[in-house]
């Protein structure tokens, strides 16, 4: 029985551990603040929103599926809280049973504990089903409609009664009925547990043969070794059934865990949307496009971190960058370049986890993943070891890079001089862009900017942080050629052996 609220076919899976690169992405894009807001103290939400955002959906239909479920969640807040409460109660109770916290050395205790936990779980399944019956008509998304349908079909009264009758029998009041094979060394082998025959007591004689008394023996009360041996033997007999029931408990528990996780994700999303609404920040449903259809077009895209922290003065940006695989951002310090870069990455990740985006409109192709390569504070000192570290970080990034990914560079390779940094960055950018990677690069590297600019490729877009004539910063990015200082000319001559003069004025 699947939850399948986050994906049309499968349950949302937890990847073993987020790859080391996601640490950079979280730090560079400032995602922690966003996660914390979504979670508002709930650790389950915190964990699942982080996973979901860092494991972007890459199919347009999957994104739309989540958008529809999220739309239901926004409109049915009470129902969602009720469902979430059942999952929380179940898992709290399970903890109280201390079940499986200890791995027992005795199949009989595994069996007895499993029976107790399963009895509790059956009660919770009943509760869940009745919620479904109450609410199902108010939900419209494919995800929720099918989920409620499954509760109805698979948790019928008949089914739940069958489960309870097994639990009663497995409690073992009627003795243990086994069969075994004579094995190697004449030891008992392939023990199998059977159901208690109907009317067991009177049937013992008949079932066991003509001479029941002669075929029976009793372990003496004081024979501890004998009692141990018997208990081992009995354990071998019930081992498989105990295992099957314990695993079944895990499976049912797994269902509740999964349900809680998936609901938690949507609770986190709807909470974030509510917080933004409180601060007067408008959001929109983004429009995902297939990954091979290069697109990026938005109106009034605002940096989410700032929307949360200081909503009043937030400046939105517009962009038309369809069919571009390289966006190079240059311009004044403190002009909002980094903020802009982050807002691109955050919006991309929000869209690809099914969330709304803080913008008036947002169109973008899906990417296989978002990576960041930001200069670190400590890198800014011109020191050779830092430059090594930067390249090592890049090399690790490239290790896990797949086509159609997006890589955001922020002041990378500035830990060396402009000449070395530019030459290196140029090779890297070219290599990535030619490998189906979308690159957004914020840089002060003049030689890099100009070399790229004079190539006049239609797939490249040059933005500049705007500075008004009075020196005030507008925090707007404008399409404009990179600024040029005479300093760069010498460097160019030095590096590339050609003069730059011809390209001046572009």
């Amino acid at each position: 029985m699947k939850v399948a609220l986050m994906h049309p076919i499968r349950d949302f899976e937890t990847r073993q551990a987020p790859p080391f690169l996601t640490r950079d992405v979280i730090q560079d894009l400032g995602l922690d603040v966003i996660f914390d807001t979504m979670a508002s103290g709930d650790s389950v939400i915190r964990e699942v929103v982080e996973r979901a955002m860092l494991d972007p959906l890459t199919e347009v239909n999957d994104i739309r599926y989540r958008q529809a479920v999220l739309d239901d969640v926004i409109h049915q807040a009470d129902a969602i809280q009720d469902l979430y409460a059942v999952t929380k109660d179940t898992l709290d109770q399970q903890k109280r049973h201390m079940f499986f916290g200890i791995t027992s050395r005795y199949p009989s205790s595994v069996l007895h504990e499993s029976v107790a936990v399963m009895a509790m779980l059956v009660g919770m399944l009943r509760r869940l089903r009745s919620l479904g019956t109450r609410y199902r008509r108010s939900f419209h998304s494919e995800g929720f409609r099918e989920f409620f349908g499954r509760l109805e079909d698979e948790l019928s009264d008949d089914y739940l009664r069958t489960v309870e009758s097994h639990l009663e029998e497995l409690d073992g009041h009627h003795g243990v009925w086994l069969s075994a094979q004579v094995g190697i060394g004449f030891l008992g082998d392939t023990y199998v547990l059977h159901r208690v025959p109907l009317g067991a007591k009177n049937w013992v004689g008949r079932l066991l043969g003509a001479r029941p008394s002669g075929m029976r023996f009793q372990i003496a009360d004081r024979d501890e070794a004998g009692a141990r041996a018997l208990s081992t033997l009995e354990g071998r007999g019930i081992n498989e059934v105990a295992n099957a029931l314990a695993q079944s408990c895990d499976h049912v528990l797994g269902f509740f865990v999964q349900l809680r996780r998936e609901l938690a994700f949507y609770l986190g999303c709807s909470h974030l949307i509510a917080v933004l609404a409180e601060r007067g920040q408008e959001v929109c449903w983004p429009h995902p496009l297939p990954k091979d259809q290069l697109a990026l077009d938005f109106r009034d895209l605002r940096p989410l971190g700032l929307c949360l922290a200081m909503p009043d003065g937030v400046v939105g940006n517009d962009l038309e960058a369809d069919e571009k695989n390289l966006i190079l951002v240059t311009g004044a310090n403190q002009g909002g370049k980094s903020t802009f870069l982050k807002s691109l990455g955050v919006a991309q990740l929000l869209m690809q986890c099914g969330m709304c985006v803080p913008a008036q409109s947002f169109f973008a192709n899906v990417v296989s993943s978002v990576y960041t390569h930001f200069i670190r504070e400590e890198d800014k000192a011109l020191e050779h070891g830092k430059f090594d570290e930067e390249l090592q970080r890049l090399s690790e990034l490239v290790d896990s890079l797949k086509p159609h990914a997006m890589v955001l560079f922020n002041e990378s390779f500035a830990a060396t001089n402009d000449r070395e940094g530019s030459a290196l960055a140029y090779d890297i950018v070219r290599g990535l862009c030619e490998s189906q990677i979308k690159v957004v690069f914020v840089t002060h590297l003049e030689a890099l900017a100009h070399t790229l600019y004079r190539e006049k490729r239609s797939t490249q877009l040059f933005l500049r942080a705007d500075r008004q004539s009075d020196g005030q910063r507008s925090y707007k990015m404008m399409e404009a050629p990179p600024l040029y200082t005479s300093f760069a000319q010498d460097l160019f001559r030095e590096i590339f052996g050609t003069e730059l003069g011809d390209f001046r004025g572009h």
Partner: protein
Amino acid sequence: MEIVYTSILFPDSITAHDEGRVPDCFHDLFLDQVVDAIVVGRPLESLKSFFYTELSSLSSIHYRHAIFRDMTKVSVKSAMTHFVDRMRKVYEKLDQSKTSYYPRSKQAWLLEAVHTYCRAVEMLAQEIASADVAAQGFLDFARYVMDYVASERFRLMARTTKKLRGEVTALRYRLYIQGLSVTVGRYANESDYREEVEETFSRFRHGTPKDYRVRFSDSSKMDHVQERIIGLVARLNPELFQRVDSYCAEYGLAFLDEGLAQFDREIQFYLTYCQFMRRFEAQGLKFCFPKIEESVKEIEGQAAFDLALAAKLELENRTPIPNDFQLRDSECILVVSGPNQGGKTTYARMIGQIQYLAHLGVPVPGQHARLFLGDGIFTYFDREESSDDARGKLQDDLLRIRDILDRATSRSLIILNEIFSSTMLDDARRLGRTIINEIIAKESVAIIVTFIDEWATLNSRTVSWVSRVDGHDSMKRTYKIVRQKPDGQAYARSIAEKYAVTYEAIKERMQR
């Protein structure tokens, strides 16, 4: 006429070998380590002693070569591996029968042992018949096995065992446990409750579930509860268990054939060695059958290597640098000189190992090898426990050399490693000259490792081999030993660099 078993290891002699006596050269040549690595995982004590026994005739060496050649064929090797594995199980089960406390348990394990033995022999007969054997030893043995398997006694034993075991292990019975009371009854087909439970909860199934089964220690020991149960099962099936009783009376004392038991022990010599070789062959190293001369005393090897070193390096997935060696015409002393840590000692040890292994009749490490039929290997390697003061040490050295020279003959191989290393140079020169003349007079063959490279040019019967350094970087060792005139310079230079006293290094240091 009944065929008698001929040893697969020692075709000529009836008294096989001198049990347990480790040859003198073993430790110096690291052959103790090599043999430990060869027999690793084989509990059989007698196996090691096979490696202590050198063969003294060419015919018995060739007898073993032929067996090894057959063992390179998959069909032969797997037949032998299977047989040995199965026989080990036979012994394990027999041991269990002997150590069991309960009579029914003794019976059960005897039945298992005989069953496994019959299978082992039958499979051996089958596999050896279809295997492509050419060695005289194997041909004789194949006839012996065929004869035994066809014998009436064996066939009856095999038939009875199979039938009885099949019947007993087909028994299924019912157990009803209520508190401390156990009831045994006949089994009527009933379904497994586990399947029902799994079916009921199958709709929740996902992923790979945790395994909650309790691991019971796989005890093959019977306890008194099991003893009572099998007793009741026997009461339910009286006729069958009567047959178990008489079976055990019949075969309990002796069911193993002596010849096969001996073969089982002996063939492990070949198996372990083949297994050992394969480890290195997998790394691209080569083994060869050495040509062994009775009349000439030239020795020669190509791409040879030290097995002890190879075994050590294998752990790090590395291989030793292979080396050649050669004494031709009237040359009888190979003098190895050159920089320290250049592999000289390993090289001398390697030649000793190869000469020894050749006398075991096993393939030797290298691409090609020619050796002579010798009567012993005498080694002098520096011992750590020897005296500290120079005089005491020299005395010690001389006593040991004297002993070697007393015992060596014209068919002996003498290996002297770093001899007189702590003696004054002038003394060492003179002593060396004397000793070399002594060896030449004895007509022995010798490998001498020394830092006194002039020894190499003392005489037309000595030949110089040098451990080479890298052409570009004289501190770098190549571990290649080549036949060439001693090059005092390389040695001097590398030492100078080690202590940073070359021209360049001194200048650089002086500038600081």
